[in-house]
């Protein structure tokens, strides 16, 4: 990074000056820090200089990551659903109707983006980050519901389901340290939620368990992947700098 190169050169000049002034080796560090100032203050001032560029870069990176994850998740769930229906000889056209696919898309993408929103908003707020993130995500879902009702279709329970699943994934990330436990909780939680909703709607049957269960497991797997990507790439996105 250019900034690092520039500051390093300045510090080298200061060290050289301190040496010429007769400072002992152990005093040079104090001399340099006294002249240069606190690294935290310098870093804080620099982050203000490039704030707009960093925000733009973080927004573009986050939007790209969200889009890619949503596409991957939606495709994964769609392929799983189709494969199951084909395997059980249940290729019902209603399963691939526009309205059904739209609801599935809203559910999967809503869950993925909902979790991403939780993650990023929590790391953006300083005071009471969890409470503010929850309120912000609820507001985002309400706005999305309104937009969908006006321009596309009333999402019904799909958006509520997406919010609930996003909360589950967030809870898994917050309550457990081990990736294995996070994955287990996510899969059991989301699959259990999906099967429970299906049982309420259609009644508990072998069909419900054998068809609905694996589809919801694929949704859960997508969500677990998103959570892992957020943990892996989130800090990079949030601290990205153009300089």
């Amino acid at each position, binding site marked *: 990074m*250019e*900034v690092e*190169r*520039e*500051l390093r*050169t*300045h510090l*080298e*000049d*200061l060290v050289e000056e301190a040496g010429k002034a007769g400072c002992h080796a152990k005093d040079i560090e104090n001399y340099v820090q006294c*002249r*240069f*100032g*606190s*690294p935290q*203050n*310098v870093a804080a*001032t*620099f982050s*203000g*200089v*490039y704030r707009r560029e960093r925000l733009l870069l973080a927004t573009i990176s986050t939007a790209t990551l969200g889009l890619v994850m949503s596409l991957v998740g939606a495709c994964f769930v769609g392929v799983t659903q189709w494969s199951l229906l084909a395997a059980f000889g249940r290729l019902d056209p209603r399963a691939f109707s526009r309205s059904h696919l739209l609801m599935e898309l809203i559910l999967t993408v809503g869950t993925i983006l909902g979790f991403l929103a939780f993650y990023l908003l929590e790391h953006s707020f300083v005071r009471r980050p969890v409470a503010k993130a929850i309120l912000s995500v609820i507001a985002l879902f309400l706005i999305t519901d309104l937009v969908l009702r006006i321009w596309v279709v009333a999402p019904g329970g799909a958006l509520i389901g997406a919010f609930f699943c996003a909360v589950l994934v967030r809870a898994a990330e917050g309550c457990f340290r081990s990736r294995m436990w996070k994955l287990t909780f996510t899969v059991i939680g989301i699959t259990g939620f999906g099967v429970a909703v299906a049982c309420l709607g259609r009644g508990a049957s072998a069909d419900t368990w054998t068809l609905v269960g694996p589809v919801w497991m694929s949704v859960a797997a997508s969500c677990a992947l998103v959570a892992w990507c957020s943990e892996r790439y989130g800090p990079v996105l949030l601290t990205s700098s153009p*300089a």
Partner: protein
Amino acid sequence: MNVNRELLKGSISLLILRLLKKREMYGYEIIQEAHRLSRNTFEFNEGTLYPALHQLELKGFLKAEWRTAENGRERKYYSLTARGIKQADQAHAEWKLFTGTIDTILASESA
């Protein structure tokens, strides 16, 4: 008597522009020149110079170029752009107006 650092913070851009109007310099050199011209009155955290330099560069008042010195050390030399020269003159005029007004008020109070 050392000058309050908060006063200095507000005028660092003006100092940078005026110093660079004479000749191009790198960061450490700007500090040395400011110390020399002020007879060591001005002392500020040198790390804060660089955010100011980058801010001025982003605004288009400065341009920068990396060069390798004889000792092998890489230095980033800053110089004024045409906009920077205008801004230096404008900032100087504003400063003279500001300090002139303050001096007038202080002189009238002591009279």
